[in-house]
């Protein structure tokens, strides 16, 4: 009886969520939202568990939030999964994170799973050569499985640092100008550098909303070029595994007010 009641409650909750998302979709929807998924370890510590369990909870939240984004028709989601500096963490935690990435990326990219269900193409962005070979192989496999998906994009930044991304973009535009041999430095503009960022090369539109969880009020090397202009930045106190509609809906409502204000001015 209790199980029936819980199941009924879960069903009603799911329907209410779908209704709420449908109502939100009547207004402007952001094209590109980024999540700095911070607070997994602190969340685990709150309940006396190990850091890697917090990361596992964080992955489930990622799937849940991604599904919300897809239902809202947000065409591009970028998440900060692993910073280049995170290699400084204890080796067993880094090893466990690598194993989590290897298994989960392939899991969500498989036929019938989340990414194929919503037509999402997976791009893993960052300094891939720093990753262990077995993780690189898994990434290639997961990206290959979703290469023909065209409805939406999921960028997983790992291992990533914004200065590395900007430097590579500057390096690319310089190389392109050298290749032309006509030597025209005016060909280097803000737009050409932006087009050579990893996010742009993967087809991502400009960033509308940047969200960092766990109460930290820094970018910590995530999407610095992309978010420094015309991007609404939200630093929420909730730890990432707890992030949900209760945190996300007010952020989306703020975005809608901005778009309406802009169109009326």
């Amino acid at each position: 009886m209790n199980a029936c009641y819980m199941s009924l409650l879960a069903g009603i909750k799911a329907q209410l969520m779908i209704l709420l998302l449908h109502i939100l979709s009547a207004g402007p929807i952001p094209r590109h939202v980024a999540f700095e998924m911070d607070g997994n370890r602190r969340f685990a510590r709150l309940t006396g568990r190990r850091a890697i369990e917090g990361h596992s909870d964080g992955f489930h939240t990622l799937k849940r939030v991604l599904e919300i984004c897809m239902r809202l028709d947000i065409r591009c989601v970028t998440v900060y999964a692993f910073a280049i500096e995170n290699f400084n963490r204890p080796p067993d935690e880094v090893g466990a994170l690598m194993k989590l990435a290897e298994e989960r990326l392939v899991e969500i990219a498989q036929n019938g799973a989340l990414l194929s269900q919503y037509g999402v193409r997976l791009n893993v962005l960052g300094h891939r050569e720093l990753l262990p070979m077995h993780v690189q192989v898994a990434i290639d496999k997961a990206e290959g499985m979703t290469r023909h998906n065209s409805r939406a994009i999921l960028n997983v930044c790992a291992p990533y640092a914004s200065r590395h991304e900007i430097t590579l973009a500057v390096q690319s535009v310089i190389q392109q100008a050298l290749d032309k041999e006509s030597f025209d430095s005016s060909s280097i503009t803000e737009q050409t550098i932006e087009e050579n960022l990893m996010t742009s090369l993967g087809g991502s539109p400009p960033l509308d909303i940047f969200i960092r969880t766990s109460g930290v009020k820094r970018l910590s090397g995530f999407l610095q070029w992309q978010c420094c202009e015309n991007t609404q930045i939200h630093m929420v106190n909730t730890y990432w595994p707890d992030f949900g509609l209760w945190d996300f809906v007010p952020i989306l409502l703020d975005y809608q007010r901005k778009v309406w204000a802009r169109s009326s001015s």
Partner: protein
Amino acid sequence: MVTSLFLWLLHLLHVSLVFLRTKFQKRRYLPPQLLTAYRSKLPKHLAIILVSHHAANPKHTEELYLESLVRVVKWCRALGIGQVTAYDAEGILLGCSDTIQERLTYDDDLDTDESESELEYPLTPPLSEASESRSHSPDLEDFTALLNVTTVCSFRKGASRHRAREVAVRRRAHHKDSPLTLHIISRSASKAAIVSTARFLLDEEFRRRQNSHDLDHVKAYELPISELNSILEGGLPSPDFMIVHHVHPQDPPPPLELHGFPPWQIALTEIHRTVVDDVARLEHPKPSLITEDAFCRALDEYAGAQFRLGR
């Protein structure tokens, strides 16, 4: 149509909840610590982003920005914060940098009756340390001027005239005459500075290949992060802490934005936005200078921040 109505109701509910939460927070208002109270850490380099409403009167906005900046500089000097960067996207502060110099000199004279201080504009921003990978041409010194950073230094008369960076590093005394380096920037020092740097590096590489007798022009061009960093931070160092202040506060306040602040320099910058605490001001929004309370609250928040640096 029905869905749009429900969306409108949702927005009304959200605005009402935000309003009630704001009122509740005002009731529980706790004043920040005093300016000179002990804080476990203070920023060495503080940035202030000044934002106004796009329809505001430009002359009035300039006055608000100028007064807010003078206040911030005064408080930073009192605390021994050695570097301040002042940013506004439109370049209003850059346009009145002479007035800023006069105001800071005037305030210097008022504050320090016995000692005299001078203001100096270096011709170019402080130069970076030598690049780790390749040496740059003598044009680098001229080039850094193109990064569009105006730097104003304040130091005591009679001190040796070192370059701005050396003065700021050498003297960090926590008293009101502390020297302070002020960088004034606008959007022209932001992504545009990275573009200028890329063009400069292209020039250099092209000249190098033309002068080189080796066949290394077939090698791909490589740019180390450290090299790009030394150029960009040579023009504008990274601030530890950033305060975003709207001189025309809105109710409810819009979400935080960075208004085009230089992207390279904000990797690890702690970000704070001032809020309007005064209930009366909320009910009748009017232009707002940054208050000492708001500044102290920002510093309290900075002192409480934790830096894990990836670990």
